[in-house]
């Protein structure tokens, strides 16, 4: 079996058998950007995880607090349609992709992280032995997990050293992680990677009046280097996850465009295009949003689709997690949530 075929089979197996969410440990959210002290205390209390577990809630107050925490960390994206272009096509490319090549996808409501997963958050996964926990990794990938090492040979992202992220980049998105590491973290935290359609819907839903009018960027149709960390910002490296607040969606999801590409759960395989066929050296996992080194504005949009091999550990690919609204227990009475907010 070729390496490509092996990766293909492994990814398919992973997508089919690793979908259910299993909460293993409360994600402590004390590092939440802009978190106020009471939020931090609630987070340290592990109340956020109450929402993500299938166990019976310990009580109404705890559930309300957990919901509040969840809402601070994630943004609700309502159900609706989104229009996927063929991979590697820009809506603005010439000639524009034919309508029959576009794919209208219906997305259920879901909650998506307001920020990409930071080095600090990923460090907890590493310290919790995430790389050694078999249940988080598909069996086919175990040999590769042993190679997911940092610069000093410790388990961890590629650009870390001795199991620690660079001190000045604790609030930056974690990079140098493969698609499998992103998935393992998502499972550990009780969530999952968004699909490409979900990611696109999160980035562009608030500007839509129907799928055909999806905006190019979360803030509108005109590119603005002040709102996203791309090549044009001149930074040349990742930024903290709470930088570029002007680039957030109207419901407060930050940095969907720029800073780092984000792994999604989808994969791009060889495809036919008219009478021709597009062939990749290996299966690609889909990435979205552009990064600090993305050069063309047309490739850092809500709609642009591209990919990288799932084992690549690039300095410009990170991820964020999401969870389907239907997988969560019933939200508490809005009135009681309001009470908690007042407190």
């Amino acid at each position, binding site marked *: 079996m070729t390496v490509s075929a092996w990766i293909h089979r492994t990814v398919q197996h992973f997508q089919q058998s690793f979908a259910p969410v299993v909460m293993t440990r409360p994600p402590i959210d004390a590092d939440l950007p802009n978190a106020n002290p009471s939020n931090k205390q609630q987070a340290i209390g592990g109340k956020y995880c109450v929402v993500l577990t299938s166990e019976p809630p310990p009580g109404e107050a705890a559930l309300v607090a957990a919901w509040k925490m969840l809402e601070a960390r994630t943004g609700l994206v309502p159900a609706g349609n989104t229009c996927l272009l063929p991979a*590697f*096509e*820009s809506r603005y*490319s*010439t000639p524009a992709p034919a309508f029959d090549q576009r794919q209208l996808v219906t997305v259920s409501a879901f909650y998506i992280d307001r920020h990409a997963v930071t080095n600090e958050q990923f460090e907890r996964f590493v310290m919790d032995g995430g790389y050694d926990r078999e249940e988080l990794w598909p069996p086919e990938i175990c040999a590769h997990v042993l190679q997911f090492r940092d610069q000093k040979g410790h388990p961890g992202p590629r650009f870390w050293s001795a199991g620690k992220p660079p001190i000045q980049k604790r609030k930056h998105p974690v990079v140098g992680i493969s698609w499998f590491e992103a998935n393992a973290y998502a499972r550990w935290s009780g969530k999952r990677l968004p699909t490409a359609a979900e990611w696109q819907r999160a980035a562009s839903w608030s500007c839509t009046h129907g799928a055909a009018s999806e905006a190019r960027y979360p803030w509108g149709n005109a590119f603005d280097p002040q709102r996203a960390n791309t*090549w*044009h910002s001149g930074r040349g490296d990742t930024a903290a996850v709470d930088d570029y607040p002007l680039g957030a969606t109207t419901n407060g999801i930050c940095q969907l465009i720029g800073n780092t590409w984000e792994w999604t759960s989808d994969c791009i395989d060889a495809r036919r*295009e008219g*009478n*021709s*066929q*597009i*062939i*990749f*050296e290996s299966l*690609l996992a889909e990435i979205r949003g552009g*990064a600090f*080194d*993305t*050069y*063309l504005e*047309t*490739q850092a949009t809500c709609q*642009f689709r*591209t*990919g*990288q*091999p799932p084992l690549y550990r*690039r300095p*410009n690919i990170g991820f964020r997690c999401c969870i389907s609204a239907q997988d969560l227990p019933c939200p508490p009475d809005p009135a009681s949530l309001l009470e908690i907010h007042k407190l």
Partner: protein
Amino acid sequence: MTSYVEQALLSAQCVEGSETVCVCCGGRYPGTGRQCTRCRAPLALSHTTRAAGRRPKFVSVMGGPNAGKTVYLGMLMDMLSKGVLGMNGIAKGSHSVEVQNRTISALEQHRFPEKTASEADEWQWVHCELIRKGRRKMPLDLVTADFAGEAIALELEHSGTFPSIQAVVSQSVGVLLLCDAFSVSRDPLNEDISALKLVSYIHGVKKAKSTRRNDRRSDVPLAIVFTKCDRCPEVQEAPQQFAANHMPRLTQYCERAFSHVCLFAARVVANSATRLDEYGRCSEIALHVEPHGIAEPLDWILKSC
């Protein structure tokens, strides 16, 4: 050769009667001709360099067929036009924008630009006024050309076939030697020998011009740029190690023949795929554009010369 090089050095200012002297080879443009009769450099290039009133600085972009010279040069010019590493470039004349336009337009469409034709009159020439941040010096006028790899190979076999190649190399203040990293990793022997031929040619041309004949080493800065590193990530980590492991002949020769040599890794796209059409023809698709290591070699050359 020395005589036409000397002519060329003066040619930016020199006009005799109605005939303009070619900035590249010192040849003459015929009365109504738009290209130099000897090297096929466009008349517009000589006009813009003469109008600048400064002696232009030539930089050679050399490499075998499919080394990625057009994409590299087009991307470099586009980055300079936006400003990179404290350098800002202004293209002088519409002919200077063509290679940049071809490259960026193609990449926007997920294609790579068409192969550069072997005919010298089809080559794109660039004159770029370069302003460097923090330098009190006047702007410098950078001149280069997008030669076809096949023409360079032919020039190596039969020196003088393409006078513009020899003229540009001879006048250059620095040389960018492009090697396809992926080809080097697959066929190191062949690529090593090909690159060795090229540096030997460059050394020969530069030494013929040099006044210090006893010194075996050339003092022209030579930047060896491994291109297409998206397909060969190990180069990105350590280009020196990669060169030593895969191209020992080139490495040894450069150490002996050039005083200033530096190795770089460059890529323009993050990944590529293959499109197979109904007739079985293959073409490469550029997935997304993430330039790395493009402007650094030029920056190094300008600091070294």
